[in-house]
């Protein structure tokens, strides 16, 4: 039995309508695919961006705010950790790295962040070019920053944000410090790709704060002089091992400080978002279902124009299965082509959105068509094939002689 010539002939006859059906199914599927792929990618990307931030110590307050500011470098106000706590944390012996994060000015739209050379090394996993900073006026730039190695720059004050306890009065001109780029980080897929890392001492000095060392001391980095350490918005620690991580978290859970694993904060955030995610997934499924149903309604309308064709086939002795396959095959063709188109549209849209999100947040968001998306599309196809059995069976029910006369 070969209903293929009939199927192809019918589709060719109504090529415009069928192309429209395929486009509709494809677009609806594409939107669903893009949403789920994008959502998964966003989670993966944001989690990966937090990978190198094992434990964060900050002033008591919102953990989410600290994560946003310290890891994703979103502008916002973060209270400062008390100087005494800061000094204690920076001298923490159970942490391999204990790095302050201080937000400074900007250069060419890139945030300047004060920290330790060891943290830069840790974050980037070895530099791409040049070396780490060893003096207060040296800087290591993120992979995407549009400065060149050896280039000199002056930080300019006053992009988006202010700091609590910022001793300096805000003014909109360049600070009279010449900085020089000595190294470039590897791409990290984090907002740090678009940041400029400088010694924390430099940020403190620009803000008119003590610089962590005795006046006149030109050294940078640890160890700091506890008497000379000002407050910072956040400290990132890399504990020696897991048990040290939990130990440190307990130690820095005090009245004056909070300590947390960013990964846990993200898990909580994803948890909250998962309801939204479920809702979106169901919306995507419902949209697809509706589109498939309206496609079927369209097919049924076309089929009723073809009652006579089915009557002729019946009159010539076409078996029930043949008639069934003629109708069903058309829907299969639409669903399968729509699914392929949908996957393409979905992948394209997800890639585009990823690109835009990465451009605006710096977080690498690797949108990919995964198992979930394939299930979504496969489910749509199965639903279409299932629903198509109804018109396919009805086609056999058309009364032959009445239909022949029409």
């Amino acid at each position, binding site marked *: *039995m070969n*209903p293929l*010539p009939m199927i192809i002939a019918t589709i060719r006859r109504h090529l415009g309508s069928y192309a429209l059906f395929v486009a509709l199914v494809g677009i609806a599927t594409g939107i669903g695919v893009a949403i789920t792929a994008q959502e998964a990618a966003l989670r993966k990307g944001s989690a990966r961006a937090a990978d190198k931030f094992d434990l964060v110590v900050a002033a008591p307050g919102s953990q989410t705010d600290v994560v946003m500011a310290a890891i994703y470098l979103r502008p916002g106000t973060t209270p400062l950790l008390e100087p005494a706590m800061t000094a204690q944390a920076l001298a923490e012996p159970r942490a391999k790295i204990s790095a302050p994060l201080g937000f400074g000015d900007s250069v060419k739209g890139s945030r300047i962040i004060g920290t330790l050379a060891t943290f830069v090394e840790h974050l980037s996993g070895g530099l791409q070019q040049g070396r780490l900073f060893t003096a207060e006026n040296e800087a290591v730039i993120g992979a995407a920053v549009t400065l060149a190695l050896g280039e000199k720059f002056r930080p300019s004050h006053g992009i988006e944000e202010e700091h609590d306890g910022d001793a300096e009065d805000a003014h909109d001109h360049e600070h009279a410090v010449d900085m020089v780029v000595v190294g470039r980080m590897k791409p990290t897929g984090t907002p740090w790709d678009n940041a400029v890392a400088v010694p924390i001492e430099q940020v403190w000095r620009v803000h008119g704060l003590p610089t962590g060392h005795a006046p006149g001391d030109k050294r940078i980095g640890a160890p700091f002089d506890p008497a000379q350490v000002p407050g910072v918005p956040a400290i990132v620690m890399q504990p020696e091992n897991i048990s040290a991580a939990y130990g440190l978290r307990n130690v820095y859970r005090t009245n004056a400080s909070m300590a947390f694993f960013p990964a846990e904060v993200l898990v909580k955030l994803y948890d909250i978002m998962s309801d939204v995610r479920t809702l979106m997934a169901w919306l995507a499924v419902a949209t697809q279902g509706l589109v498939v149903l309206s496609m079927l309604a369209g097919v049924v309308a076309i089929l009723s124009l073809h009652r006579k064709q089915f009557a002729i*086939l*019946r*009159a*010539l*002795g076409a*078996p029930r299965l043949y008639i069934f396959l003629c109708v069903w095959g058309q829907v299969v063709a639409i669903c399968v082509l729509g699914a392929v188109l949908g996957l393409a549209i979905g992948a394209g849209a997800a890639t585009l959105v990823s690109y835009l999100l990465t451009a605006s947040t710096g977080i690498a968001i690797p949108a990919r068509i995964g198992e979930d998306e394939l299930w979504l599309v496969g489910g749509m196809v199965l639903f279409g094939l299932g629903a198509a059995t109804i018109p396919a069976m009805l086609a056999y029910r058309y009364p*032959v002689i009445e239909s022949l006369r029409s």
Partner: protein
Amino acid sequence: MVRAPALSVRNLRVVYSDRNAQVTALSVDALDVAPGTLLAVTGPSGSGKSTFLYALAGLLRPKSGTVAWDGRDLLAGSESERDRWRRHTIGFVFQDFHLLPELTPLANVLLPASFESVSAKASLKDRAAGLLERFGVPSKRKSIADLSRGEQQRVALARALLFDPPVLLADEPTASLDASAGEMVAQTLEDLAQREARTVIAVTHDPMLIERITTRFQLERGQVRQTESAKALA
């Protein structure tokens, strides 16, 4: 050689129900047709000739009565059994041809082959092309719409004969044909019945065709008016 089944019709009533009225389109009390008969069905327009052929092919459900081929009541089996029986037993030439405009003339002739569980063999394609050639239909034409009515009529006949059926039911098979094509079709029908012992029942107004057929059956307003055969005439 295939043996055509014997036809036996008893108390056949076909009623069409319009929106409000019921029309008795056909009422045949008794009719027997022996295998190998060439039968002409005549009668005025609207007298139920097409309806009669539909009933013989099991395409419609009579109000009452039986149509039996070789003693087997058409309505006894299931619809799919009837489909299969029709496919293998009946060649049908519709009054309006009922070709599928989506398909090429050759594909139209081959259409019944696509219903079979095994796909069309090359020999069947040769046969289809051969039938078209024999009936003088230009085989290169892409579309049914490019054919004249007379050519379409012959495509319909070729389609009906694809499987070499034991029974051919033809509704006005020469109505759109010129004299020579009509002769050729008439000859074909005659050969089928006389040389190959198939049953051929042709509805016709065509004097040329009627003249060549010795067994006749005339309908008027759904009733049998007259049955005559060469023997009776003689």
